[in-house]
């Protein structure tokens, strides 16, 4: 008999039971639907045990890598700690060490921690204000760069949280930061594969982290980054990206502007359209998409139709919380 631990409570899993069976028998509130491994409703994570292979069938590599599994397919082989998706999160206090503008509406916020903060470049966290107001932001740096997290925060008109960060937060203030989440990150496998990175606005944040990570881990295939906005004033880190492209022959940076005024050195058009027009075929490419939800959903489909495999398409759409 195997023991399942959820938030300090232990549940027993009988030999013929799946994790889902056991938790339902114990009246644990876990979401599920098909019980056949199809709907992925009962996906959970174990921070301490590598799940049986059969329980990870059909999941993306990045999810497998972080020990996600389907409770309905899991006959546990050992005791497991289990994290449910909606389980209350553990927050760590960090201190703001950098607080400066990247362009007219985007703030660079760097938060430092006492101890190492474990994450994969491209993941996101929840930031929480003292009154409990919480928003998700993507991490823009890589874990190798000391105990800090870097964020690109766009000011949303009427957005309570972004306005608070822009107008009130100062160097030295503390912010509560959740554990990292999301499965949009780089894994050092098939390093000869082409990487296509497409983002709008602050979608550059996770992509910059993924890019830095891929370069640091010696990715050898071609890497294309398409970053788009309407006006040039809403792009940022243009010089840094151009500099990187000079240093790395296989990295290509294509800033795109959809507005009327397009200075030299920029492509004209929506970033998704420019990116798609640049490739006849995306078979065997790995694709990362971040930013506007419509762009992300559209591009998931279009890159798939151009030949990219679903298991190679990673995306985090920004969902803007209504204020």
């Amino acid at each position: 008999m195997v023991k399942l631990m959820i938030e300090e409570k232990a549940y027993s899993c009988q030999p013929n039971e799946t994790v889902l069976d056991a938790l339902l028998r114990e009246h644990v509130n876990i979401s599920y639907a098909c019980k056949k491994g199809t709907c992925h409703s009962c996906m959970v994570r174990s921070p301490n045990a590598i799940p049986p292979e059969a329980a990870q069938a059909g999941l993306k590599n990045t999810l497998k890598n972080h020990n996600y599994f389907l409770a309905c397919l899991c006959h546990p082989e050992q005791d497991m700690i289990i994290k449910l998706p909606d389980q209350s999160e553990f927050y760590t206090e960090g201190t703001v060490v950098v607080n400066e503008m990247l362009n007219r509406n985007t703030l660079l916020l760097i938060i430092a921690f006492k101890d190492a903060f474990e994450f994969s470049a491209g993941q996101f966290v929840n930031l929480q204000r003292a009154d409990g107001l919480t928003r998700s932001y993507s991490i823009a740096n890589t874990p190798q760069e000391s105990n800090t997290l870097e964020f690109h925060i766009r000011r949303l008109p009427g957005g309570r949280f972004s306005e608070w960060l822009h107008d009130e937060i100062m160097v030295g203030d503390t912010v509560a930061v959740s554990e990292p989440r999301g499965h949009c990150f780089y894994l050092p496998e098939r390093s000869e594969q082409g990487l296509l990175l497409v983002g709008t606005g602050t979608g550059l944040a996770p992509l910059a982290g993924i890019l830095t990570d891929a370069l640091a881990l010696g990715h050898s295939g071609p890497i294309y980054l398409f970053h788009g906005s309407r006006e040039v004033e809403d792009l940022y880190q243009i010089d840094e990206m151009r500099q990187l492209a000079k240093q790395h022959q296989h990295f290509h940076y294509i800033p795109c502007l959809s507005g009327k005024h397009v200075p030299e050195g920029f492509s004209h058009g929506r970033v998704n359209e420019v990116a798609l027009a640049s490739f006849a075929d995306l078979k065997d490419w790995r694709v990362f998409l971040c930013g506007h939800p419509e762009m992300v959903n559209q591009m998931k489909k279009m890159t798939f139709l151009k030949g990219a495999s679903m298991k190679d398409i990673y995306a985090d759409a920004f969902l803007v919380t209504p204020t």
Partner: protein
Amino acid sequence: MTDTLNNQEATMSKTLYERIGGEAAVNAAVELFYRKVLNDYRINRFFDDSDMDKQIAKQKAFFTMAFGGPNNYTGRDMRNAHAPLVKMGLDNFHFDAVMEHLGATLTELNVPADLIDEAAAIAESARKDVLGK
């Protein structure tokens, strides 16, 4: 008694799922099939879920079923799952289009014609439930 008979049959002849290549064959078929479906204006609105990962998982379940692989879908499951699509107008015309893509996908993967016929017959057997008739 029926179970014993089925088991004997299974040991005597391999299932279609095994002969066609098991999970590897399903994986190869799913993406080819789903690209065809998304490119087909007759039916793509029924498949245009915003969550593509879930769609792929559903197509995988479909192929496992069509190959007679391990699944425990009942007629009622089929009815319930497709009921919202029937409300959207799903009918024989669309079912035929899906059957067409199933055949084309398996042909493209060089599956022998007799095995394609077997898979098509299994998929065909779900027609009434899928269309809620």
